[in-house]
């Protein structure tokens, strides 16, 4: 059984980001790059499937600028993935190009029996690649999954819906499944794992190997800017009664939100 896990490298959640003066992007310094948090759940799920199924082979793939994204592949290898592939592409690759490149990569490698992703990359919060990749591959998908019971032909998944509701559904075992928090508890890479990961080869692929090019994105981001400064805070003085009556008045008359 061949499992593919798609992971994206994103800035650490505590990163303080600054946009470039010319608005062309963010300054890529002063923070750590990490694996997208939802993709950690996808990697962990693959490892747990492998524990039950010794014949399983896990490939982790990422698309991005090779100099930096290789670290995220090393992390996944150190967690226990068997093989790693890197699709070298500019950071500007959009959901469309990413999903197409991943799909062409899958065809080139002869297909996988299960494809795991994260429900969303926390950089642009698109939440699109999972579904687009599924469509490119002609597969069903289940996104925002908090439980996966993999069967031979069919799997049972639990998806998180709005307002805390859950949907239990049956999908073909060969599908694209997008992981949510709650699916499992991702492990940390062990020290021996980290040492071993350093020696594992990384299969490098260019966009042109896949018949694609940098200019195949369908959306383009520009004019990166910091959010507008908020006006200074108004503290409300006095006892609770005075504070709350003033607050209600301001919400109604000044902010007009009530």
């Amino acid at each position, binding site marked *: 059984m061949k499992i593919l896990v798609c992971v994206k490298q994103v800035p650490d959640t505590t990163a303080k980001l600054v946009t470039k003066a010319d608005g062309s992007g963010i300054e890529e310094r002063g923070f750590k790059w990490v694996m997208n948090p939802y993709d950690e759940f996808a990697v962990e799920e693959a490892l747990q499937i492998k524990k039950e199924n010794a014949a399983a082979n896990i490939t982790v793939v990422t698309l991005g600028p090779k100099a930096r994204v290789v670290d995220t592949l090393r992390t996944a290898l150190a967690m226990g993935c068997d093989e790693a592939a890197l699709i070298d592409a500019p950071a500007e690759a959009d959901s469309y190009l990413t999903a197409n490149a991943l799909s062409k990569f899958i065809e080139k490698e002869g297909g996988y029996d299960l494809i795991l992703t994260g429900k969303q990359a926390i950089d642009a919060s698109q939440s699109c690649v999972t579904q687009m990749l599924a469509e490119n591959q002609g597969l069903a998908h289940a996104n925002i999954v908090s439980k996966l019971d993999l069967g031979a032909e069919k799997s049972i998944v639990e998806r998180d*819906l709005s307002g805390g509701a859950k949907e239990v559904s049956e999908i073909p075992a060969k599908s694209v499944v997008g992981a949510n928090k709650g699916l499992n508890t991702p492990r940390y890479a062990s020290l021996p794992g980290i040492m071993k990961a350093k020696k594992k080869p990384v299969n490098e692929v260019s966009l042109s190997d896949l018949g694609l090019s940098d200019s195949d994105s*369908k959306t*383009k981001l520009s004019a990166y800017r910091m959010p507008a400064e908020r006006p200074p*805070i108004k503290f409300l003085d006095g006892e*609770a009664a005075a504070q709350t009556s003033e607050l209600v008045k301001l919400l109604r008359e000044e*902010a007009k939100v009530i």
Partner: protein
Amino acid sequence: MSKILVFCESANGNIKSSSLELITAAKASGHEVVTCLLGSEATSLAPSSGNYGATSSVVCSDASLDAYNSDAYFNALEAIIEKVAPTIVLASGSAPARDVFPKLAAKFDSGVAADCTSIEFNGDNVKLSKPLYSGKCIADVDFQNSKIQFVLMRPNQLPVGEADTSATATVEEVALPAKDLRVLIKEIVQGASKRVDLTEANIIVSGGRGLKEASNFKLLEELADVIGASVGASRAVVDAGWVDHSMQVGQTGKTVAPSLYIACGISGAIQHLAGMSSSKVIVAINTDKEAPIFQKATYGIVGDALEVLPVLTEEFKKIL
């Protein structure tokens, strides 16, 4: 003139205001606006989309579309998009829309801009802006060489126009394509909360570790009942098991942008701010005047949330 297709969803027998926002914006562009609705209420609701500027509506009123199934929605919407042949498709970022439209975009060999907060039209092209990195910065989005421009907007970002009840949309039905469904929904387990989902809520009251114990969340529930809010939480209290994960706001929870966000006993860690700092008005109630949440807040109360909340609820009752 090109065509804009607006996906409309309904709640409690009306078209949702998040859909009306999109019809209003599409109408202002001067393009022809066509709406689409799915499910057994579709035929009766579709004409009213004309009140906001749609000239026609295409519906698939098959009752099997009353609940979301990614395959069934895909099949119905694919047929509708083929029929309408729009250059722009607009949908609000509800869970079903965010699930199905990216798949449709791939089908139509097109790009998607998701989680957008503003929209402008330049001729046949649409220009969006969206927060990146959970609101740490903002950028514009343009489409290039996209057959159809698929746009998913965050709810509550745009104004809803005045309804003109004399204008109604003509309605045309398409049949649900008879295709096998690969996805089979076995069961929906309802959540504990009957409130509007956080991502669509207009007002949110949210609690953190400063509420001291799980049972004190009832103070937030009481306030939420009075002002019609949804209830959120910090990760600290979700991890402590006080409330369900679906209530978590922040980087690894939900990203919200209500008109009013009331943070009670929440310190304002960067990962929490990441999920709510684009709220229009932020109120913070915290005992610590130095808490980082006050740097983002519009109004601040330095005080004990357990003491302030019941008084605040009573104060709102006087005017609501």
